[in-house]
């Protein structure tokens, strides 16, 4: 359950890695920006949660394209590590833009109150169920896009072999912008889905980022099905850890999982292939 929602930003992270070959740590602030974009659409615009998620996708995606074009793309020739450092700096800068506008307070979405559903002995919150559906729809849409559209095929081609894709006339810059839009958009959706359950503040994205990395690394950095498998693994492991550990350590589970997988199977469960 928690793992399904986690899979959405993890796919974003791993997709950007697959095409652009660097870990984009600015994902955390984009998740936050998406969450706040959805929040404005939901509270000020009066949209229901599922429609606000679309706004979250668009806002985070656009910010992702802008910030990448202005900040990260000029740095990519300097190497993956320099770009990753710049991404951390960018993350802090963007996070503080959100803080400047909205302050540090926790904010809740405007949602109708619903009674929990009772299925046998298990209680399910309708909102959680809706989040699950939204996450599944987002992932299905992405898979259809990658598998059947021309642009989706171009993205896979660049991830697989940038030189060959270039020879075949695929515009790498365009694909780069596109993967940023989709990847950061998914991050925004993830940020909002996580916020729907609880509340949002400028650190919303940062708090889950460790689990997102863990999902991507455990599944195999750069592999989209890997991110899904990784997210489900991390989600289940985090829930199971509650049996033995204090709830505060949920995110530490991700870190332990990273160390564990890197030691035993460095390429992740599904390896590094992009799809």
């Amino acid at each position, binding site marked *: 359950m928690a793992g399904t929602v986690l899979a959405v930003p993890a796919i974003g992270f791993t997709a950007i*890695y697959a095409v652009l070959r*660097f*870990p984009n*740590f600015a994902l955390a602030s984009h998740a936050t920006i998406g969450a706040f974009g959805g929040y404005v659409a939901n509270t000020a615009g009066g949209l229901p949660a599922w429609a606000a998620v679309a706004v979250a996708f668009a806002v985070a995606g656009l910010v992702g394209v802008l910030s990448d074009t202005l*900040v990260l793309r*000029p*740095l990519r020739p*300097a190497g*993956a*590590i*320099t770009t*990753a*450092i*710049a991404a*951390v*700096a*960018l*993350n*802090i*800068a963007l*996070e*503080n*833009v959100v*803080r*400047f506008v909205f*302050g*540090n307070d926790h904010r809740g979405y405007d949602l109708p109150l619903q009674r929990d559903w009772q299925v046998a002995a298990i209680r399910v919150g309708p909102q959680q169920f809706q989040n699950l559906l939204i996450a599944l729809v987002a992932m299905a849409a992405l898979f259809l896009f990658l598998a059947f559209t021309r642009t989706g095929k171009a993205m896979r081609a660049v991830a697989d072999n940038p030189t060959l894709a270039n020879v075949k006339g695929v515009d790498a810059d365009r694909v780069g912008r596109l993967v940023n839009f989709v990847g950061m958009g998914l991050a925004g959706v993830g940020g909002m889905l996580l916020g729907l359950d609880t509340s949002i503040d400028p650190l919303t994205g*940062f708090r889950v980022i*460790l689990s997102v*990395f*863990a999902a991507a*690394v455990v599944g195999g*950095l750069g592999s989209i099905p890997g991110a899904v498998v990784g997210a489900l693994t991390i989600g289940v492991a985090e829930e199971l850890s509650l049996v033995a550990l*204090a709830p*505060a*350590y949920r*995110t*530490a589970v*991700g*870190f332990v999982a*990273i*160390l564990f997988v*890197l*030691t035993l199977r*460095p390429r992740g469960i599904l390896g590094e292939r992009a799809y």
Partner: protein
Amino acid sequence: MLTFAGFYGLMALGLNLVWGMAGMINLGLVGFFAFGAYVSALATVNMGAPIPAGVAAASALTAGAGVVMALTTRNLRGDYLAIVTLGFSEVVRLVASNEIWLTKGTDGISGIPGPWRGRVTPETFNLIYLAIVAVFVVAAFWLLERVRHSPFGRVLRAIRDDEQIAAVAGKPVVAFKVQAFAVSAGILGTAGALYGHYISYVAPDSFAPLITIYAVLALTAGGTGDNRGAVVGALLLVFFMESTRFATGWLPGLRPVQVAAVREFLIGASLVVVLRWRPGGLIPERIPRA
């Protein structure tokens, strides 16, 4: 303020060894810094160890943590190390916030002893401490300059520039990388321990990821690969931070949280600007003659 420049200088020197010389990245600087601060604080407050022993323990244990990090990612590209170190710093903060029996949680540990604290006036204490930190910075600087000019430093640069060639030349690349990472982590831990004894109080909130950005900014502004650059960069950084404090004081009609946001934004933005337009820093690296 100069004392803080010393802490950042130590961190930038430590970072320079792994990033500037060996080309490995540590995005969890603050985690090692915090680890060192807590080790020394616990040793002196709970176990009554003398301060030098606490600082020594902090250096040694942090170096050990660095060995584990470096070994875990030894066969992988640098991006994995970036993720693991970033994760490490978050886990340190989690543990510090939640193992209340050990670290007093978010309340933090207070009353960490400082050398001659209470026996001299606060001003004299600050001066004494500045001298102590300066000694550490000079010692680290001297040590790293020795490393830079030594065959060891030459191999590290070779690994940074082309790992395969270094391996073909018969250098045990992994061993070199792990050693460099351990020494660097040790320096970061020492800086953290000194910080704790100066402030007399450590809490998880003191160790936000922003500190990592401070250290990276100090090093890149001063000049990656050059130890003088690290020290100069730390001085510049403190000057810059103080001037943003001054400048944001002039902005009218902002709430305190907005002022803080503007300052943090400026720090992040300035690192991006330096990386973009002055990647060599003020003092670009000059390779010493063999």
